[in-house]
């Protein structure tokens, strides 16, 4: 089994090494690194913005490029975190702690290079995990029926809500709002139009890409409009680590790969969560290394973890058709637009496609390493683009992205609406990730709910099916645990 998986992987690697695939993996890696470097434009918005570009391309080329954007962003996100203490990505927030301290000590180049090396090694380890875990999980998922998928969707929603913010009520509200947005348009079973308000353009529903462009792209521009302009370009001296320094980061890199991979398998275990976990674990392992005051381990742990996490996030997407974070939700949307339905059958029906994508991820990681090590100085200069030029460009690409989904100006207006909604929700402390994920999981949740209800003549018999029962129990236990933890924290704080 393992041997055949690796055989298929090497086959995929060969297919991913054609000039066309290499070109698109390169474009994705460059774009991803660029958006990672630039604070204010994350991989979610970029994948949404690049959606029109993929319309005329094959699904394979599209997914290779967009996956490149996602892991490229994890590589690039450390640059501003280390140089100017402004994380390019949420997953690089922890990197800024030790990275910026290293930069202040004159070790910015070294911090950037160990971040890139750790990202590469952990990313490749994550890919090995993906190769090993995905096929057996897909085989197991073949036994899933509508009740299991319904329970899985509920569990996914609960996990995302729990991990996306401190306030569970706000997370649940955002998730339910996303579900309501997903309900607009034709009912998936009867085809009856709902909640359209007589607007013909809403009969087709609210496209996830349009919502993502608004929620993550336009709202970010609005938030940054009030941020102080200008940026600092830090000087970079020595880049490459010595042999002794390389030896020092081996163990933290291995630990970060493990700490990043497993959270990536569950919904809500985003790169940001993984990097935080890995940093905390590394603090326990490297007590004498001065973590928090400019230690290499403090850069390696979060950067390795967020890359391993990206590889792991493809496991539930490919095997269960379940997105665990907003970029994965968009990749699922792109695959669906191209007529592919991720899930257990994809491994049987489209093995070449899947293994080429996985192979291209390895190639993409090599490209990211090559792009990030010698070109560190160039990426650092990108941080000096003033917001007055960057923001209008982002808005224009958002508008093109929204318009291109259905060639409709109505979608442009919708994107602006979601932009303002996103800004308002973020300003009021509501997380956006549950909303977007609910929008993508919503149709599956409704369809499987209807099927389960008809199949079992009600929803309560779902607990007689072991897999769905375990999933629902996990969801309940998780919610209860979170609430108890919150009460305990409040009581301890008050005491």
């Amino acid at each position, binding site marked *: 089994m393992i041997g055949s998986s690796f055989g298929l992987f090497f086959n995929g690697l060969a297919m991913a090494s054609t000039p066309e695939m290499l070109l698109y993996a390169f474009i994705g890696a460059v774009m991803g690194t660029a958006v990672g470097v630039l604070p204010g434009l994350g991989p979610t918005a970029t994948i949404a913005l690049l959606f029109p570009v993929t319309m005329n391309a094959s699904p394979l080329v599209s997914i290779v490029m967009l996956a490149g954007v996602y892991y490229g962003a994890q590589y690039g996100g450390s640059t501003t975190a280390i140089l100017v203490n402004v994380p390019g990505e949420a997953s690089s927030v922890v990197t800024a702690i030790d990275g910026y301290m290293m930069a202040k000590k004159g070790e910015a180049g070294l911090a950037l290079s160990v971040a890139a090396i750790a990202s590469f090694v952990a990313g490749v380890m994550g890919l090995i995990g993906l190769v090993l875990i995905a096929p057996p999980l897909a085989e197991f998922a073949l036994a899933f029926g509508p009740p299991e998928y319904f329970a899985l969707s509920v569990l996914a929603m609960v996990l995302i809500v729990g991990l996306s913010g401190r306030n569970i009520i706000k997370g649940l*509200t955002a998730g339910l709002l996303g579900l309501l947005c997903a309900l607009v348009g034709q009912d998936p*079973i009867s085809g009856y139009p709902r909640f359209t308000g007589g607007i013909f353009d809403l009969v087709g529903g609210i496209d996830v890409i349009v919502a993502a462009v608004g929620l993550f792209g336009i709202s970010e521009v609005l938030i940054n409009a009030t941020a102080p302009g200008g940026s600092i370009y830090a000087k970079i001296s020595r880049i490459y680590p010595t042999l002794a320094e390389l030896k020092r980061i081996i163990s933290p890199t291995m630990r970060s790969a493990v700490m990043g991979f497993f959270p990536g398998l569950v919904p809500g275990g985003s790169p940001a969560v993984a990097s935080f976990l890995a940093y905390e674990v590394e603090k326990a392992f490297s007590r004498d290394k001065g973590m928090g005051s400019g230690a290499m381990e403090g850069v390696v742990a979060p950067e390795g973890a967020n890359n391993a996490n990206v590889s792991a996030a493809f496991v539930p997407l490919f095997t269960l058709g379940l997105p665990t974070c907003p970029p994965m939700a968009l990749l699922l949307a792109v695959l669906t637009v191209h007529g592919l339905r991720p899930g257990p059958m994809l491994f049987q029906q489209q093995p070449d496609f899947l293994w080429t994508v996985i192979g291209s991820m390895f190639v993409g990681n090599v490209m990211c390493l090559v792009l990030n090590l010698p070109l560190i100085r160039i990426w650092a200069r990108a941080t000096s683009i003033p917001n007055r030029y960057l923001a209008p460009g982002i808005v224009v690409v958002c508008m093109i992205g929204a318009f291109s989904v259905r060639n409709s*100006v109505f979608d442009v207006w919708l994107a602006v609406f979601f932009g303002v909604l996103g800004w308002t929700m973020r300003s009021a402390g509501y997380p956006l990730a549950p909303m977007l994920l609910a929008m993508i999981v919503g149709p599956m949740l409704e369809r499987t709910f209807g099927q389960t209800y008809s199949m079992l003549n009600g929803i309560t018999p779902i607990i007689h099916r072991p897999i769905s029962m375990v999933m629902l129990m996990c969801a309940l236990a998780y919610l209860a645990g979170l609430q108890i933890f919150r009460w305990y924290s409040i009581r301890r704080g008050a005491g």
Partner: protein
Amino acid sequence: MSKNFNLDTIFHMAFTLFGAAVTVVSIYWFRIVPSVALAASPYFFPLIVGIGMTAIAACGVISSFWSTEIFTFQALRNKRFTGILVSIIAYAVAMKPIGFLLSTALFCAFSARILGEKKLILSIVFGIALSLGFWQLFAVNLGLVLPRGLDVLIWGK
């Protein structure tokens, strides 16, 4: 009982009302639209989501009285923020009647000025360059359809 009645409470109240509205609309249409079975009704699932939303947001209203989080919308008083917000809305509205090229050039020039570009000429050059650049990339190179509006006067049909 009440410690804080702030924006947080108002937001939760708004979501409660929204959830209640969805519930009422779902009940209304649930009774009108015929379906072969309960679960097959197009308004059965929305009804459940609406009830869930109302209940959760109502819990939020109650919990917000004890919340120590204070949210303010200071950005609304910031000229840059309101300027960029108005220009984005105007851009979206203008895109269809005046076309992609003109609306993009105007939006970019205007928003660059709002966000701090002091030289008017530089803003205009930036707007035109970005507009033409994006047109070349997306419409010409990638073959995407973009709103034409008055652009037909420049490029012809």
